[in-house]
Each structure stands twice: as C-alpha cells, then as structure tokens.
C-alpha cells in the first residue's frame, strides 16, 4: 500500500466510499460509460477512460458526425494558413487504439432515472456514468432578423464544417472595395478571442486580394478578449481597414435584413456586401433534455465536473458553467481529464488525484504574429478558481510573436492527437 500523500489521499477516500456502489462489477459485467459528443471534451474523456482503465470499463462514444472539423484553426483556414482537410479528424484511433465503441448517431434523449440514452435510430444504450459534451447550440433569434435560413446568407460559422467553407467563399467573392459586416456574439460564448481572430484573418485575405475593402464590426459588447493586442495588430497590419464599434457607440443592433443586407442600429444603418453574424449561444440541446441545465448552461461540481443535478452525469466543455475557465477546446480537454480520472475512480476504485485545470488560447493576428493568453486553475467548492495566468504584451518583438505562432501549430498537433489517437 502506497503511503498516503496529498496526491493519493483523495483517491483512497474515493475508493473506500465507492466500493459498495459497484453492482456491475459485483455481477462480473463491465461498468459502462456513455459519452455524448466526440469533440474537445467528449473525445478526450472517452479516450482517457478507455486507455487508463485498460479494458475494465466499457466506453461508448455517441457522435453524430464521422468526421470532426475543429473550430480551432478554422480561422486559419479563412486566412489561407491551413487547408480544409487539415482541420478534419476521424475516430478510427479511438476505436482501434483504445477500444472505444463508436456510435455515429444523434443522441435524441436521455432518461436519467433509468440511466439510458435514446439514439436517433430508436436504439438505446444504458450507462453507469454518462458524459455530456455536446458543445453549443445557437440562439438564432437573439439577433432580430437572423434565423436558421439566414445562416446561408450571413454565415455564423461557429460550429465549423461547411459554414466555414461558405464564409470563406463569401469573403473571397466579395466585390472590390466592398464592406464586410461582422456581428460578434454577446457573453458568454465559445472562444472569447475567436471573433477577433476571425476579423484578423478576413482582413488578411482582403489585404492580399481586395485591399480597399472595409470591415465594420458591430459588437454587442463594450470590450473583448485580448482587445489591446488585437487593436494594436489591426492598426499595424491593416491600417484603416477595420472599424470596431462598441455597443455603447452604436446603441444596439435593432434589426438585420438579409435581403437588403442592412444592419439597423441607433447610430446608423450599415449596408454590407458580405457578412458574418454570430448569435448568442447555449448548451447543446441534449443537455437540456437530460435536465442538467439551469437556464442556458449546466452547473457542475468543480472538483469532478459532475452535474449539480445528477451525480451520474458529467458535463464538459462549452455546455458547462466552468467559471472562471473560458469556453475553449483547451479548457474542454483539460476538464475531460479531470472527469475521466474521477469516473474511473468511482467505477474501478483507481486513484483519484486532486483536480488541476489549465487553458491557453493562441490567436493569429497576421502572418507570424501570434498572441496568447493562458491560466492555471484549481477547484474551489463554488467555482473553478484561477490561480495564475499570463497574456502577451503589446509591443512585443517579432521573433517572440513568430515563436508564439509556431507554438500554436505545435499545440494544434498536440491536442488533436491527444483527442483522436
């Protein structure tokens, strides 16, 4: 028996309190984990539970798509720094290397009393522990005049896939000297710096092929993530091209008209030649169906990522209220490892270590001009608590900015192989 240290103490406790509640082990069947959503949170959780339990836990991943196109680096695709194929990933590695059962279907509902997930085909899968990491759904009507139909005219491109291809075509096809209007989402939303990296990458495209084009940003907020760094970069690389207008300045977006391409605000009516509208967001619908939400998002227990509503359900990533962590792929991946360790501990009695969370988000402002923000977190009873952090500085030298961009490429390759291989 290993000596009890700070790191093993939690585990010993967990093992002794859960030993009695393992009927499936007592009857010789494997405990079952079902994961809904094979993105940054779900793919990571499925992999770590399967890998570390070495066959002692049966893991099923329910994911609608056979190919996952990352939202991360979709902006770099817009700027021609990546091709579309390079941001797509399949699930063979999870199945072949770790024995995860892949089910490519929609989870249509959850019966938490019976511990069953209903699939689109009508089949059901039962679970001992359920992980929900469905990402976001969009609240189309949060912008007056926007709708599911409007997304083909003014793509949000906030769930990756074909929407991003559509947006890129519209950017490249915009008339010379035209105006691109961008509406970022209100807080909270996935990837706080994402809309501003997108603006940078669209500006980068225009600078190459349509240098007299303009970008007007009608923000529902008065400030945004890495604002000083983005503003400095826009001034430096795209002088005069980007006009960012804060909520207090334009007074609110009253209405958008997708046939005339007009954006009505108190300040003025803006006419666009192409546009991207990112509406407000909420947890993926299956979380609401499972009853683990409180309003738009799902409260969790910081130490384990268990739902506050149901101890057999864990909610990861964008869908969760993981305050003070931002909604990012890095955060979801980090939360998944905490949950995986806790789930395995409660099902097999393996050690449960003290939770540790981290996040870093890189953004590309222009060629070889990368910026980053990151933080460490620990679990307090009422929130995931930031313990330290850093952010790039304005006026940094170009070698550092280039190294920062290169780091982001290393990170992309790291996190995607961590999720999928």
């Amino acid at each position, binding site marked *: 028996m*290993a000596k009890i*240290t*700070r*790191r*093993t103490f939690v585990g010993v406790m967990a093992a002794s309190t859960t030993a009695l509640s393992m009927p499936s082990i007592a009857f010789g069947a494997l405990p079952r984990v079902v994961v809904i959503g094979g993105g940054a949170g779900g793919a990571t959780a499925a992999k*770590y539970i399967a890998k570390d339990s070495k066959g002692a836990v049966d893991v099923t991943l329910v994911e609608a798509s056979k190919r996952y196109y990352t939202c991360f680096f979709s902006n770099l695709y817009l700027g021609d720094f990546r091709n579309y194929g390079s941001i797509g990933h399949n699930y063979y590695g999870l199945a072949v290397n770790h024995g995860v059962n892949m089910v490519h279907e929609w989870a249509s509902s959850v019966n938490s009393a019976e511990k069953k997930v209903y699939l689109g085909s009508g089949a059901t899968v039962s679970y001992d522990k359920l992980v929900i990491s469905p990402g976001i759904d969009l609240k189309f009507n949060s912008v007056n005049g926007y709708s599911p139909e409007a997304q083909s005219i003014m793509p949000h491109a906030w769930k990756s896939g074909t929407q991003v291809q559509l947006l890129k075509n519209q950017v490249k096809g915009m008339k010379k000297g035209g105006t691109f209007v961008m509406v970022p989402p209100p807080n909270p939303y996935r990837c706080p710096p994402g809309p501003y990296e997108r603006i940078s990458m669209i500006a980068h495209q225009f600078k190459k092929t349509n240098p007299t084009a303009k970008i007007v940003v009608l923000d529902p907020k008065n400030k945004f993530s890495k604002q000083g760094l983005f503003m400095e970069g826009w001034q430096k690389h795209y002088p005069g091209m980007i006009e960012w207008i804060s909520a207090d300045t334009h007074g609110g977006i009253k209405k958008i008209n997708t046939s005339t391409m007009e954006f009505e605000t108190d300040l003025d009516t803006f006419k666009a030649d192409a546009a991207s509208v990112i509406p407000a967001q909420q947890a993926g619908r299956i979380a609401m169906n499972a009853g683990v939400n409180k309003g738009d998002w799902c409260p969790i227990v910081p130490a384990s990522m268990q739902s506050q509503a149901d101890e057999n359900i864990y909610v990861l990533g964008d869908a969760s209220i993981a305050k003070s962590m931002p909604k990012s792929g*890095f955060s979801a*991946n*980090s939360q998944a*490892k905490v949950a995986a*360790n806790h789930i395995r501990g409660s099902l097999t009695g393996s*050690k449960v*270590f003290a939770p*540790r969370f*981290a996040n*870093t988000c890189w953004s590309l402002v222009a060629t070889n001009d990368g910026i*980053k923000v*990151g*933080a*460490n977190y620990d679990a307090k009873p009422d929130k995931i608590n930031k*313990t*330290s*952090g*850093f952010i*790039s500085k304005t006026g940094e030298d170009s070698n550092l900015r280039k*190294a920062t961009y*290169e*780091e*982001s*490429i*290393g*990170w992309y*390759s*790291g*996190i995607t*192989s*961590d999720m999928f*291989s």
Partner: protein
Amino acid sequence: MKSKFVFFSIIILLLFSNKILADDKALAGADFEYGQHLSGECVTCHNSTGLGQGIPKITGMKTAVFIKKILAYKTKEKDNAVMQMVADRLGEEEINSLALYLSKTK
C-alpha cells in the same frame, strides 16, 4: 574470516544505502502512476507521438535533464510564458513523478 565478512557486508550495505539515498534524493516522492496522470496535462501541447512542430518532444528524457529543464522555467531563468506557468505549479513531488514517468515513456 568473520571480520572480513562483516567488513564486506558493511561496504555492501553502505553502497546500497548510498544508492537508495542518491535515488531518493534525486526523485523524492516520485510515483509512476502520478507522473502518468500529470503528463495528461502536458500532451495537450507536447504531441504524444513526439512529432510536434513548434513544441519539443519531452518523452524519453533522462530524469536529470528533465528536472534541469523544468527548473529553468520554474525559476524563470528560461523565458516562455506557457512553460513558466506550467512549471509554476509543479512541486518537487510532481516534477519527480513526471521525470520518472517521462523517462520511461517513448
């Protein structure tokens, strides 16, 4: 004869305990399983296949080399915001456990 045996035993014991002491000192509190668990945090950036671009491979590193490199970030002697933050919250037990695990992992 007897004294010779005792003499030898003492030498062997000394050598042995010295070795334990040396290892203990270098890797106090090291635990392979803990190291493996902690490495989950590293592979978000450090490609587990070692083929990363922009971020170096850290598996298969000799324990002493690893510890020296981590301490360089921890003491801020080496400049990198992300690695300084990572190293910042690694205590001796964590560093040694990671050193043990990473040294034995390809």
